[in-house]
């Protein structure tokens, strides 16, 4: 660059700064933290997860929001390592053919995103990176949103791309039936000659249309599609396939998934509360079909307290290759093609969920809280969910008391 052009460049930069600095206002900043515990102890297994998170948001200009944060899952428990069904167990009455293994993991996620806002449109781009002992994930997402018809209509399009990888054992066999499950995560993501990684690519697309119909009624329609390409099994789990044959779980590498969700929010003036309901239909190329119905009722008590109660019902069919016992027998037992899994989430089942949440918002009309906060929001929620498995057993023993408990406390402060 020539020296002579420098003064003019400085002038342009200064002018740009002045122009961009002129709409400086508000300088709003928010900080939030949440802490969640998850616990379940169905037959023969248990899982405890503590998930802390912190996040921050700043709006240095009226047209820009910047967000960032960190979250983690601290996991301990025991899960099924070798899955067998009733037919195999009945032929080995003296033995316990199902085994479990302890699980300890730590998942860390860092994320950041920026939103550029216009009069009626906004564009968001963000990045997430997460690590676990046996899993790595990089994820990019973009989102475009626009309002129309005096803000009564909103359209939103989103896309995310995950570049993930999962750790596995280096197999000495080429026949998947003889693959051995990963025994632990030691050596994962190192140069260990005993470990390898498999890539997983995930493309997720979502489009939504939200509409205000009356001063008390709004609806939303959401379509979601996802393409997953890569290793989708649990590398730690084996399934007994026959006498003396225990193969690492083996699922198809491709999966296309789609869902349609319809929501309605209706404010009931008589009880001064909002009823929100949603219905979701889901299907994928593994032949899982599911339906979900959710209802929430939320009511404000005074200026600062909101109480919410929720209920949810879910029902799904099995993946086409899922069987409770791959060693044979009359239907529904027996092998089903070239794939096998011990995953209860791919079996046919139904579940229910009930929960409640309270949100307390403190926003002084004059001055600042403790001299520096514009508002403070405290929230607490508790949820319990139960699962009823139609066919999934552990060696013929039904999985009972499959209940999970989730509780969250969070704090959100605005400055």
């Amino acid at each position, binding site marked *: 660059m020539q020296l002579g052009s420098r003064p003019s460049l400085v002038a342009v930069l200064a002018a740009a700064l002045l122009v961009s600095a002129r709409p400086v206002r508000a300088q709003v900043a928010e900080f939030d933290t949440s802490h969640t515990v*998850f616990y379940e102890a169905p037959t023969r297994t248990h899982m405890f997860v503590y998930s802390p998170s912190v996040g921050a948001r700043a709006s240095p200009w009226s047209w820009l929001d910047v967000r960032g944060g960190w979250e983690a899952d601290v996991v301990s428990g025991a899960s099924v390592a070798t899955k067998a069904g009733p037919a195999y167990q009945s032929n080995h009455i003296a033995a316990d053919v199902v085994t479990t293994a302890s699980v300890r993991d730590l998942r860390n996620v860092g994320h950041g995103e920026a939103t550029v806002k216009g009069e009626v449109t906004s564009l968001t781009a963000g990045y997430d990176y997460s690590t676990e002992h046996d899993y790595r994930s990089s*994820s990019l997402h973009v989102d475009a949103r626009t309002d129309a018809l005096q803000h009564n209509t909103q359209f939103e399009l989103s896309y995310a791309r995950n570049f993930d990888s999962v750790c596995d054992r280096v197999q000495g066999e080429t026949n998947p039936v003889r693959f051995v499950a990963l025994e632990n995560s030691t050596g994962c993501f190192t140069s260990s000659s005993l470990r390898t990684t498999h890539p997983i690519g995930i493309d997720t697309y979502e489009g939504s249309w939200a509409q205000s119909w009356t001063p008390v009624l709004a609806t939303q329609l959401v379509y979601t599609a996802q393409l997953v390409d890569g290793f989708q099994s649990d590398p730690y789990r084996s399934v007994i396939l026959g006498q003396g044959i225990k193969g690492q779980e083996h699922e198809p590498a491709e999966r296309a998934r789609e869902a349609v969700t319809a929501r309605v929010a209706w404010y009931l003036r008589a009880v001064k509360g909002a009823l929100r309901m949603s219905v979701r239909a889901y299907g994928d190329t593994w032949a899982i079909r599911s339906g979900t119905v959710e209802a929430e009722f939320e009511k404000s008590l005074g200026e600062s307290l909101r109480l919410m109660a929720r209920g949810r019902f879910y029902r799904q069919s099995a993946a086409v290759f899922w069987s409770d016992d791959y060693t044979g027998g009359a239907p529904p037992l027996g092998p089903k093609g070239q794939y096998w899994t011990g995953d209860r989430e791919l079996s046919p089942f139904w579940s229910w969920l009930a929960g409640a949440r309270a949100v307390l918002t403190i926003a002084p009309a004059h001055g600042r809280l403790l001299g520096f906060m514009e508002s403070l929001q405290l929230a607490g929620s508790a949820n319990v969910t139960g699962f009823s498995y139609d066919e999934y057993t552990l060696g013929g023993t039904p999985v009972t008391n499959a209940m999970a408990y989730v509780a969250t406390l*969070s704090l959100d402060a605005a400055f």
Partner: protein
Amino acid sequence: MNIKIRRSGRLRIALPDLLVFLFPPLLSGCVTVAPQQRAILADPTMQFGAPTAHEAPLRHAIDNREGSMGGHGVSGGGCGCN
């Protein structure tokens, strides 16, 4: 909606019906809630948005206990499949 299936198995749909079906948002142009009537719609209890930091862990737990997904946004990193 005027939809007929011929014996040949082909689906026959009248064009106006198809437009209404494919572009239901066009109907929304007939609906206007004036800005001064939007107080309740702007209330936190009436929002559909993506899961907040408070709700996200519950959604994550549910997604990992079911064979389904969808309807709650696209972002998120990692497996956390335990």
